[in-house]
């Protein structure tokens, strides 16, 4: 039986080593790869160091989208505050004025947000949860896509596991 105990000890040590490696890797990785989300209102209140990677989100303000060459500029709002965003590249297919989006990037010294990725969704009725919360916090919430929802009553879920 002593042999069995040795083997069990060996398993436990191996398992402990795996867990320790995992934790060490996770802690190293977390340090610089967690990206916080801020609404335009929070950004106006908060001191953010320029260059820090963050996510922002809100509704694309109607009439704010303009393009200069391959650079697009638009304004994102949570209905209380707004934030100017610039992006170089091709916006996702579902990017539209009035639509909720989330963008990842950093603040320039000028206060403009330089987006490196713009996330819009596969489904036009989808509202990113952060954006919904940001608008709720700003006090202008009337249920998820209240107008759009009545119109279509549907397309509510499309299965892509």
């Amino acid at each position, binding site marked *: 039986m002593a042999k069995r105990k040795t083997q069990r000890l060996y398993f436990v040590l191996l398992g402990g080593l795996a*867990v320790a490696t995992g934790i060490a890797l996770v802690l190293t990785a977390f340090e610089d790869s967690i*990206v916080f989300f801020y609404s335009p209102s929070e950004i106006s209140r908060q001191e953010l160091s320029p260059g820090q990677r963050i996510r922002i989100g809100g509704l694309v303000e109607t009439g704010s989208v303009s393009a200069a060459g391959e650079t697009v500029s638009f304004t994102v709002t949570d209905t209380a505050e707004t934030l100017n965003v610039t992006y170089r590249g091709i916006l996702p297919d579902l990017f539209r004025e009035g639509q909720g989006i989330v963008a990842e990037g950093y603040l320039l010294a000028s206060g403009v947000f330089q987006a490196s990725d713009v996330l819009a969704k596969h489904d036009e009725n*989808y509202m990113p949860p952060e954006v919904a919360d940001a608008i709720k916090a700003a006090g202008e919430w009337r249920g998820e896509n209240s107008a759009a929802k009545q119109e279509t009553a*549907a397309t509510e879920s*499309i299965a*892509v596991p």
Partner: protein
Amino acid sequence: MNPELGLFALALALPVALVQSIVPLIGAQRRDAALMAVAGPAALAQMLLIGTAFAALTQAFIASDFSVMNVYQNSHTAKPLLYKISGVWGNHEGSLLLWVSILAVFGAAVAAFGDGLPDRLKARALAVQGLIGAGFLSFILFTSNPFLRIDPAPVQGMGLNPLLQDPGLAFHPPMLYLGYVGFSMAFSFAVAALLEGRVDAAWARWVRPWTLAAWSFLTVGIGLGSWWAYYELGWGGWWFWDPVENASFIPWLTGTALLHSAIVVEKREALKSWTILLAIITFSLSLLGTFLVRSGILTSVHAFAADPTRGVFVLVLLAIAVGGSLTLYAIRAPTLEPGGLFAPVSRESGLLINNLFLTTAAATVLLGTLYPLIAEALELGKLSVGAPYFNTVFIPLMVPMVLLMGIGPMMAWKRSDLAGILGRLKGALAAVAIVFAIALAMSGVAIVDIAGAAGIALATWLFSSSFIEWAGRVRLFKGAPTDTWRRVRALPRASHGMTVAHMGMAILIVGVSGSSAWKQENILTMAAGEKVTVAGYEITFNGAELIQGPNYESLQGTFSAKRGGSSIPLTPERRVYDQPVQQTTEAAIHTAFWADLYVVLGDGPTADGRYVVRAYFEPFVPFLWYGILMMGFGGVISLSDRRHRIGAPRRAPAAAEPAEV
């Protein structure tokens, strides 16, 4: 066939599933053969009933019966037939119906072909299947009825999301579900074995075909999803470490571990309770994946609008399945007969270390995926965990695992000789050195170049050592060709399958490292007649025109790419579908065996006739698809091994009647 018949059949399937779960469980406990015998016919009846429901819904979609709400919401008469059919599972209700249909078919397969299974194990496994079926059937009947009618019936349907009108995505959900549901079989067998208090080599052989089939389907399913994201979204990327992608990848990692630990149970009767635990965890993670996708609580680039109440229902199912099975495990696992001992350097140890890497990797991916939820619950702020996290934790775990993958298959059971194996692998080491040097010479010495070359060298190690192992078994070039051929035929299919799958993984690694290191991207605005150079290809924009498709209008750009001689035509599109009105991007991809040239047409034209154009050079991306296909194919070869025919293995007669526990 009409929708009411479908609904009726579905409603009838629920009590049948309950009978299938309760009666045989009691029968197995009381050793009452008559009660246990209920399981088989009940499983067959369940398949017929759910099959009827599935056929009724499919028929409603094909016939465009818009009086059915689900058809109205997700179909349109102008849609091609393939997408009418794929529309059946292209929505929440239908996809759940597909889920239970697959479950019922698998259950019926065990009932019909599992003659070799001991009666009590078979009865209990089918009973657990019945329980899972009952859970999902009530989910469908109480929250997501696919047969809901609308009156008056609309004349036209609302159409399917155009992003889903795509061959890759038509088959992506069924493949994933075949994987998830296949793991439910391993789960059912695990719970049945715990109830019985007995796990042995025969048990492992019964579980292995299901695990293998599930793993192969899941591999191909994840591959299809990745392929689709690559060509349909127009971002030039194939994996984003997005929550929805991770949801299918985490069960894949633990499922791969299960596949390997079951071998140890089969050959050496060791790691028994660990294997049982893995079977439970893998299916639980499949359920968790379903929950994450269905509830929409995580921000994902692949997110679709979802209904939180349904999420709660899946969460309750998850809690019952995980809580119940883990409690049972905690009570019963200590009573399992302990397995055999083994030496630190042996095949068993190799497989154990493989399991440690895979499960640690699965845990770290799970943590990164769920961390935003944890942080929100703890009020640490809203945050997201991006690709850098996953790359930092995942790659260091995979590199040593792949190094071991080269050695492991050569190790003998019980006790092995490491020096001897490394001696046989001299050729592989030489190949690694040569390939690494060539890759560096062709790319450069920047950090990305070294990383890319190292990835390819790692893949070379795996590929060549897998080949050496296989060649050693068939004595390639060592004996007469007829002798080698005889050995090739005599070698179990499972061995061939392993070699093919491991080589597929090597090719996949080439794709991952090469495309990550050497991708080139260029974004610019172009007017007709202008040129841009990407990776030596001179790409000319010849203009764009409107064309009419069956159910969309498209702005099609015409480009020609030239490198050296012939010119390659490229026609990216920006489509606007009629129903529902939605824009999609169709990237133009030219595959030249080892690399893709990838062009996307963006916004335009501006007042002076310019379009935004994104051009990528994607080296080694095709290797991803070759590798994934090879891995899936390896699984299928292994599945065809005669040991894995359902019910073929029999328990040793001496142990046929275990003591009551």
